[in-house]
């Protein structure tokens, strides 16, 4: 039995926030789960993929977040409880479905987990998705701990089903990736079996239906607001004439800050767990007991604005502050919150001496793994197209190609932007444009951009980096995966056929680990660009980590620098494999050594330099 299925009511487990979310879903009888992976949400869908067969649940790695919401809402429409999880920017992709699903609603409970990433630990922005719940008009719960995450899942499903509306569980990295004790409830058995009653005048959103449904949504929200006013997730602690309003993990920083500043007897903390619809009555009541209020929250002044509205309505005369004291960018911590609390209330606060980090420490940025085929592709493309070309890139491991020495990334805004922006660049520049996109990202949102480029006859080369997996987020499957435990086979959706179907006529497939052949094909494609139109190169070689895991293949060789590598030094420096160690030979000249522990055995460097030879690894 999967560990998350075991354990009965009252038992305690040490769970990751994302595991607690899974457990909460299991205690709610969820049987349909759909997601596109994205940090910090990925463990939710991966965990379900591992236990789904055991409970007869459908677990769908959707092609993107919009599809995941649409797919899961259909199940919920038929009475099957469903779950969707995504990273914060995923909700941008899903927002079209999300906004109108709020109107149409659901029959069985549906929770949408939006995992926000303050401080951009692994994201392109740190948008605050609480505004999405407000914009769509759906209830929102904000857990601070794994325990709350689990409990709010259970409460979320009840609420969702009772009012026929999806519920947003808005987490942040520090909740998703926090591990703490969780007291369990009981796992609920349900069947993956739905029923559908035709009801087009409530389910088919034409304008006349939409008008009616919008009014119905406003009615629901008014009712749910009553629930928010008395929600057990909105709690007050402490005494005194000063007040703090907070939510999510920020409330934990407040608790620690108040204890360490010795202010528990002087400050009341209103910790909000249900933040939309905003519990205006509860907050008005709280304002009646305090003289001044500080709102402590990460990112945008979401609660602060709501508190100010309540203050205006109830005639609160005291001082209210938020973002004047609490930073708006990046995640908070207890130190920052102590500073804000001491500053606002005018309390003396002894700051510890902070030791300065020595300035000259060498950086340790994440890098493409040794043996990564993306490095080989970038090397060859740069060799053929040079500095002259513009390189729009996309989201995945290969975004790391922006680092020196490769520096093969010039523009990126979001998933799928590589090919669409390449179309725009190519129309206004007299320079070659070569875009990079991964296989999973191409399926996620590159296809429409490619069709657009073809239909407008843009002049560009799109390189699809096909490593047969979604590597960055932990090797999840996608429709074009051709490498499985059974070996290398036919994918469900064939990439070449798809690309040709988009109208692309100039298409080639290479294995980037064959350097000479790859560069030869690239030269031909470069020449072909002169005739205009879209060319596509599929650069195909499996992620070595994934291949070893899938096929259980052990690495057979490592490479060694055995002689004079000086003639090829420039090429090796350009390749910049992270297994290279630069040292000096007897005459003081730079030369390459290879760290055998790190070497992935891809043989790319050996094709650039004859002094590099393979060495067999003992079995």
């Amino acid at each position, binding site marked *: 039995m999967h560990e998350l299925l075991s354990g009965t009511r009252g038992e*305690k487990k*040490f769970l*990751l926030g994302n595991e607690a979310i899974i457990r909460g879903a299991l205690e709610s009888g969820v049987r349909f789960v759909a997601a596109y992976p994205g*940090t*910090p949400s990925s463990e939710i869908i991966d965990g379900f993929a591992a236990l789904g067969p055991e409970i007869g649940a459908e677990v769908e790695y959707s092609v993107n977040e919009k599809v995941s919401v649409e797919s899961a809402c259909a199940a919920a429409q038929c009475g099957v409880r469903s779950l969707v999880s995504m990273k914060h920017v995923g909700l941008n992709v899903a927002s079209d479905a999300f906004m109108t699903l709020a109107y149409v609603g659901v029959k069985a409970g549906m929770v949408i987990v939006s995992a926000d990433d303050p401080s951009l*630990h*692994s994201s392109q922005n740190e948008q605050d998705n609480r505004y999405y719940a407000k914009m769509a008009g759906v209830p929102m719960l904000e857990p601070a*701990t794994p325990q709350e995450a689990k409990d709010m899942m259970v409460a979320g499903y009840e609420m969702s089903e009772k009012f026929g509306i999806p519920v947003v569980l808005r987490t942040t*990295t*520090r909740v998703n*990736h*926090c*591990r*703490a*004790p969780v007291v369990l409830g009981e796992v609920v058995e349900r069947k993956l079996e739905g029923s559908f009653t035709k009801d087009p005048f409530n389910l088919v959103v034409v304008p006349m239906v939409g008008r009616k449904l919008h009014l119905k949504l406003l009615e629901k929200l008014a009712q749910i607001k009553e629930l928010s006013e008395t929600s057990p997730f909105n709690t007050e602690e402490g005494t005194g004439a000063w007040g703090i309003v907070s939510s999510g*993990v920020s409330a*934990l*920083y407040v*608790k*620690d800050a108040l*204890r360490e500043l010795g202010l528990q007897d002087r400050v009341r903390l209103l910790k909000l767990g249900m933040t939309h619809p905003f519990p205006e009555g509860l907050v008005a009541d709280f304002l009646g007991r305090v003289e001044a209020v500080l709102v402590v929250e990460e990112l945008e002044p979401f609660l602060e604005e709501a508190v100010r509205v309540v203050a205006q309505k109830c005639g609160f005369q005291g001082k209210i502050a938020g973002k004047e004291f609490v930073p708006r960018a990046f*995640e908070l*911590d*207890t*130190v*920052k919150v102590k500073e804000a609390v001491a500053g606002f209330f005018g309390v003396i606060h002894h*700051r*510890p*001496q*902070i*030791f*300065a*980090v*020595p300035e*000259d*420490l*060498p*950086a*340790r*940025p*994440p*890098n*493409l*793994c040794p043996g990564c085929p993306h490095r080989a592709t970038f090397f060859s493309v740069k060799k053929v197209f040079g500095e002259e070309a513009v390189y729009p890139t996309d989201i995945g*491991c290969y975004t*790391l190609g922006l680092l*020196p*020495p490769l520096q093969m990334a010039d523009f990126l805004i979001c998933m799928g932007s590589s090919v669409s922006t390449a179309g725009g660049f190519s129309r206004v520049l007299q320079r070659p444009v070569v875009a990079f996109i991964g296989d999973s990202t191409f399926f996620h949102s590159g296809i429409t951009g490619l069709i657009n480029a073809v239909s407008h006859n843009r002049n560009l080369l799109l390189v699809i980096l096909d490593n047969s997996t979604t590597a*960055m*987020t932990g090797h999840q499957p996608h429709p074009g995966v051709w490498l499985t435990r059974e070996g290398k086979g036919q994918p469900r959706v064939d990439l070449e056929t798809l690309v040709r179907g988009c109208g692309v006529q100039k298409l080639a497939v290479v294995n980037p680990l064959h350097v000479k052949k790859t560069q030869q094909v690239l030269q031909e494609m470069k020449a072909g660009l002169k005739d205009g139109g879209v060319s596509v190169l599929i650069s195909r070689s499996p992620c070595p*980590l994934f291949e070893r895991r899938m096929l259980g293949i052990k690495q057979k060789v490592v490479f060694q620098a055995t002689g004079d590598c000086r003639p090829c030094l420039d090429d090796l*420096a350009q390749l*910049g494999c*992270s297994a*290279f*160690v*630069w040292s000096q030979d007897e005459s003081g000249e730079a030369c390459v050594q290879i760290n055998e522990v790190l070497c992935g055995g891809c043989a790319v460097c050996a094709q650039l330099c004859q002094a590099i030879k393979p060495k067999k690894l003992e079995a």
Partner: protein
Amino acid sequence: MKTQDIARFEGVRLFFTGVGGQGTLLATRLVGEAALAAGLHASMSEIHGMAQRGGIVESSVVLGNIQAPIVGEGQADVLVAFEPLEALRAINRCHAQTQAVVNLAPIVPFTVAAGQGRYPDIARAVAMLQEKLAKVVALDAEALARQAGSVKATNMVIMGAVAAMQVLPMSKETWDACLQRIFPPKLYELNQKAFNMGYEKGHP
């Protein structure tokens, strides 16, 4: 219980830093499990995502009355550095009473290999940490792990030294019971041996 009374235990913040693949997350989890077994509240935080790509991996555990799972500037009561360069980089998390365990085996970042910056002198790095912090246990955990039977047990050597610290209220028996629970029987003996070697080093 070791020297302190659990009921009077206020709280400790531990900050872990290392490089992807060093087993920092399992080590962090061991502290959490040991604390829970000793009847203390524990909460830990991890940053995933870059572990396989040679980047820095940071994690933290807080025990006792502390609620927030992360460790800010100047807040680490215990610094556990799996790599000496990363120990220096984490010095801003420490305060004058911080106790540290530092693995002396370096993992040179590729930026150094590519000629962008120089790896700091390890002896001087340790001296600097010793000058600023209350206590520094510096050990070549990799060498000790090799003695114990596998370099893969480096993390358990380091954790042995952490367990020996007086600031942590968990008894040796509690740690041992957790090791037994975390590792499959086949790996337990090796890891326990590595843990004990670190414990000896860390003992005052």
